[in-house]
């Protein structure tokens, strides 16, 4: 989550079980889904596909030093993320 009215950098993690990766990779549109530049261009979201527990989801909860300094918080401070179940 952010306090920016129009965030320009939105990250999303697709929690995909390990057993489903092989199925994803043989899907006809697999490369389109794995191509983050194409996904970003189409959906304006940085999409990461990982099996849980996701290192990227944990990474996005941490603030980078530059942002933490500006906000006056400690480097181990965490931000909230949203979990969407489909």
């Amino acid at each position, binding site marked *: 989550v952010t306090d920016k009215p129009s965030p320009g950098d939105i990250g999303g993690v697709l929690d995909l079980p390990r057993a489903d990766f092989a199925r994803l990779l043989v899907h006809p549109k*697999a490369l389109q889904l794995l191509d983050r530049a194409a996904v970003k261009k189409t959906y304006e979201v940085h999409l990461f596909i990982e099996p849980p527990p996701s290192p990227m989801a944990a990474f996005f909860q941490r603030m980078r*030093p530059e942002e933490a300094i500006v906000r006056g918080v400690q480097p181990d401070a965490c931000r909230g993320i949203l979990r969407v179940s489909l």
Partner: protein
Amino acid sequence: MTQSVAVNWTSETKQRVREIQDGLLSMSALAKESGATDEQTSLLLEPYREMLAMLYERDMPLAKLVDESALLLHVHGKFAAGPSPRVSVLAKLLTQTRDQVICLAKQLGGVTTLRVPAFLDTTFVGVGGGAYSSAFQLQMHRKRAT
């Protein structure tokens, strides 16, 4: 903006590097066991490589600056943007900051001489750059000159 150093930013950033490295290794193994092609494997590993590059190139230098300095200036604006600020902007900021710090220190220390005592002089630690900001560091000598 000033920031007092109460925690170790470098070790925190190193921990994040380890987490992303672990994620890269895990994804590499998963790609192999899932039968990914070379192109698919490259696409799956790319985010971790980008994160590692960002951590090493931007976050780690800034974390070290914060850990090693007593005073941090965080500057916003188009002339401070980018990895390397303009020399003219840097020189002006450092001069103004040094003068203000010395003026304050002289008042607090009761120094009335025009000349700046050696123990009040400042040490420049470094510059850290970002997409929209730059950081400058000054560090006061901690020991009074004899």
